[in-house]
């Protein structure tokens, strides 16, 4: 969901990213016919991915964050196809083996959704996933933004 990183601040434990909603997608065919909207679950996933990249950076890319809990998710406005989204997340609490973040998405300067997210931190379960994540981190420019 994340197309690129705008800013990463490891001291403040925050991240800003951008996400472009495609103009067309099979998702929109059913959600909804004649009134395409980005499903709330995908907005939550977008916030989770931004948070995940932040956590990867804060843990030196050594552990994989897995979304464990979503709280107080508020879907404030509809998001249409072709929307340019500004996604931000910051660390709320770092526990032992888990992390909590607060994330939100803005569209055209207006907050469209926000949520409190909890992640479990685990070793990468496979080398393939680890390689994929490191490739993705390079692709979105995460390391170069710190």
């Amino acid at each position, binding site marked *: 969901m994340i197309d690129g990183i705008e800013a990463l601040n490891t001291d403040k434990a925050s991240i800003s990213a951008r996400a472009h909603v495609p103009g067309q997608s099979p998702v929109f065919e059913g959600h909804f016919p004649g009134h395409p909207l980005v499903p709330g679950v995908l907005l939550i996933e977008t916030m989770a991915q931004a948070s995940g990249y932040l956590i990867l950076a804060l843990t030196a890319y050594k552990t994989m964050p897995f979304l*464990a*809990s979503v709280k107080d998710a508020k879907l404030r406005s509809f998001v249409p196809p072709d929307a340019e989204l500004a996604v931000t997340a910051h660390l709320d*609490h*770092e*526990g*032992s*083996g*888990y992390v*909590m973040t607060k994330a939100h998405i803005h569209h055209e300067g207006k907050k469209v959704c926000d949520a409190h997210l*909890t992640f*479990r*931190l685990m070793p990468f379960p496979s080398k393939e996933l680890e390689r994929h994540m490191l490739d993705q981190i390079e692709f979105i420019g995460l390391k170069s933004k710190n």
Partner: protein
Amino acid sequence: MSNTFETVAAIISETSDIPLEEITPESNAMEDLGIDSLDFLDIAFAIDKAFGIKIPLAGWTEELQAGKARVEDYFLMKNLCAKIDELAAANNS
């Protein structure tokens, strides 16, 4: 320990929607109170904040999975509270 127990019991009751009277020092959080590992993340967060500590949940989990500790060592309420007291004392020293 009694203040610690009262605080932790209140956290568990609030977080996991368990009646306070069902939580005793002899309660096993996992086996008696039905709290799973996901529920315990929220509980650990609240305990971390209340006591200014960081419960070493990852380490406890590793020890349990490796068979080096029993569930009751960490999740029996009186043992959990004792661990919290140790962590809080270490923070204050």
